[in-house]
């Protein structure tokens, strides 16, 4: 019996090894493609290194030994609370193809690939990023997130956070109660109490990250062609794996360099590239397939309205009242009210957000990205399409999955879309470009 168990154990070991190698290769491939795009700066290395550290080297996030990590899954979880309790938040929404292929066999066939990838990592148990988490905070937003909370409960302590579907005053009050409970939970895990000082410091920390992000977005907005959208998204994605202060100071250095380049007119491209905005289901590293395809096809991703990109951090916390409860309240409000996530019953503010972004970034075309099985974004496509058509902006719906098999088809469609925009801008411009 023991012999059979040993054989089984060996087989499992080999399987895990194969998985780890494959996932490493997959990540490396995308990192290479990202660099091959050209235009990467030295100041972007800290961000790429963070991504590499997690997914290629297979290490945990860089942190002091005594600091525990708490995994979060959506933007509605206020990271400030986790910092205030002395832990480090890590965003665990996954974009990994190899993990997806494992998870495909574990969870329901029609579930979204993001959740399948999470299930894949849970099943294989090879990534320290997931394994070392002391607590998982899962906001119950869409159906898949709801079910994955039940699934990963078998392996980790899970704290499901109820995100209300409506956003009236009473719902905010109830959410505030849930945040207090979350605070207790995280304190319990770290053994550290949340004091006024630690909460204020946490807000200052994320505020610093917010400041640098606002700066970054402003620079990107005012000077076109300053950097590729793929790199911008990778940089913003990296905030999931870095301490907010570390990310912010690296961002500050990047911003300084970008400002210098803007003044010296050092752009990544002299051509008048079609300005494309990405919106829809989350685009998580290493699933940078869509932005890479667009930019390899000659477009420029100038903005994105996705929760792992710009939208995830672009709403600042606005503390109105200086009391402890006031700070908590400001967190609750920031997590719910400005969030244009389609899991809210009334998401009409997303249309306004898109309108504003089209105006700010002089967007010429929109690509609506839907992950296969992501119902909530799919439902909203019709409305967004109507709105953009009334503004005269072309939009296409690109559905993708976490495999490389649909790359060619997506490439053809992206190239066609980019061409359409070029022609729209004018036949002369198309020739020049």
């Amino acid at each position, binding site marked *: 019996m023991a012999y059979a168990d040993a054989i089984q154990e060996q087989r499992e070991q080999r399987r895990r090894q194969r998985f780890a190698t494959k996932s490493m290769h997959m990540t490396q491939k995308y990192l290479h493609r990202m660099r091959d795009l050209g235009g990467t700066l030295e100041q972007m290395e800290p961000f790429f290194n963070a991504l590499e550290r997690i997914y290629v080297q297979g290490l945990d996030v860089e942190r002091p030994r005594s600091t525990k990590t708490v995994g979060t899954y959506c933007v509605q979880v206020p990271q400030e609370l986790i910092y205030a309790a002395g832990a480090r938040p890590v965003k665990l929404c996954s974009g990994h193809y190899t993990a997806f292929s494992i998870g495909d066999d574990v969870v329901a066939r029609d579930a979204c690939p993001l959740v399948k990838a999470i299930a894949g990592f849970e099943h294989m148990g090879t990534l320290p990023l997931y394994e070392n988490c002391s607590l998982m905070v899962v906001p119950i937003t869409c159906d898949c997130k709801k079910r994955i909370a039940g699934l990963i409960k078998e392996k980790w302590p899970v704290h499901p956070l109820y995100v209300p579907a409506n956003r*009236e*005053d*009473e719902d905010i*009050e109830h959410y505030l*109660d849930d945040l*207090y*409970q979350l605070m*207790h939970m995280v304190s319990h895990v770290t053994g550290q*109490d*949340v*004091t*006024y*000082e*630690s*909460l*204020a*410091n946490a*807000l*200052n920390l994320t*505020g*610093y990250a*917010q*400041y640098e992000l*606002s700066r970054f977005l402003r620079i990107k907005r005012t000077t076109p062609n300053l950097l590729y959208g793929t790199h911008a998204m990778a940089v913003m994605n990296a905030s999931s794996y870095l301490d907010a202060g570390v990310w*912010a*100071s690296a961002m*500050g250095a990047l911003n300084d360099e970008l400002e210098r380049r803007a003044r010296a007119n050092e752009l990544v491209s002299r051509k008048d590239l079609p300005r494309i905005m990405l919106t829809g289901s989350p685009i998580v590293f290493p699933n940078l397939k869509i932005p890479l395809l667009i930019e390899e096809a000659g477009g420029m991703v100038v903005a994105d309205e996705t929760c792992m990109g710009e939208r995830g951090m672009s*709403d*600042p916390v*606005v*503390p*109105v*009242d*200086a*009391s*402890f*409860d*006031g*700070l908590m*309240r*400001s967190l609750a*409000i*920031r997590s719910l*009210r*400005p969030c*244009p996530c389609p899991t809210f019953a009334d998401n*009409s*503010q997303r249309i*306004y*957000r898109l*309108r*504003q972004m089209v*105006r700010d970034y002089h967007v010429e075309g929109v690509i609506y990205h839907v992950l296969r099985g992501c119902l909530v974004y799919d439902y909203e496509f019709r409305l967004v399409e109507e709105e953009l058509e009334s503004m005269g902006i072309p939009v296409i719906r690109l559905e993708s999955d976490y495999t490389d098999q649909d790359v060619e088809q997506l490439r053809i469609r992206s190239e066609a879309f980019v061409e359409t925009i070029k022609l729209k801008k004018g036949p002369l411009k198309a020739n020049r470009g």
Partner: protein
Amino acid sequence: MNKKGLVTAIVCTLMVFAAYFAWQFVFFDYETNVYTTTAEQLFTIDHLTKLVPLLIIGLLTAIGIVACIVVRNHLMRRDTLRSPYATRRAPSSNGRVRGRRVSAFMVVRWICMVGFFALMVFGGVLLGVRYAWISIPVLSCPANMSQLTEASCYYLAHLEELASLPLMGIMVFVASTLGFVLVLGRVLCGFVCPMGLVQDVMHKIRQATKVEGIAMTERMYQALVPIRWVMLLLMIGLSFVGGNYCNFCPAIALTPVAAGLSVSLYASGFLMVFVLIASFFKRRFFCTICPLGYLMGLAHRVQPFRIKKDCTACTECGACYEACPMGIKQLYTEREQTDVTDISCIMCGECVRCCPEDCALSLTLFGKDIYVSKRSRVVEGYRR
């Protein structure tokens, strides 16, 4: 819902009762009331002794606030979620959220408020002139005959006395009051009214001591509406039934006493204590029920100071609604109109100050931007 209606009815009845029999509730009595002061009398020992009623009010307010905090902590003990954090707001607790830069608009507003307070207390005496023909509709009690100008509230509360004035007097009063209402409107509430300054000071004290306030919801604001109507009714109608609103209005306990006048306080004193405690926990509480403010707000559609909103830039974050002392929800829910000036808006500018989106909200005068919301104002303070 019935319970709430019952509570409101009881509160309104008590108010009417207290207002009608105001002269029975003696707070501080002088044998003879003196309504003027002289420049020599200012800032003397004699002046200081006349401030005793204010000191009593202050003491009672402090005791009341401490009592409220103690009671609230006691009640919260049952709430296992929040009770551990009840004491984490000691004044000595370290930590401060950086963030907002100081804005010029707010500095100007405070200077105006303090300046006008001085003018309304003893401006007339200090400057040696008095423009009694100017009637500003603010709560700077006309019992203080040493202030720089007149305040409209006396004649509005005693309409039959207004009617008994010569025609010229009536016209001057109406023109002056109406002029201020149409041109400035509730900007007077935000920049001039002495009651406003006192309430803002209470709010600042709470912020500095990090004491938890009372979070108002839409329902709670709606519950205050009947109380505001009762106040309006009392102000306009009390004189017709033999009562005197001035014995009830808390403003009499402020500027006349500060000027060193000997003015007897009746129910007003108690009400002032209540107003100060309430405005400690809820910013600008009295402004939400002020009858004079409501009358001024009636002209909000024609006033030149307006709040403009760019509905596309707005992310519906709700920070403006949280910051607004008057609880104006349409600031953040409005999606079509560009003008969101409300009847309750006191033009304090807090909404613009807290708005994190560029140019989403702005305070304008004749269409020109005076104060515009900026992202940098909200986040720049976090820079390292």
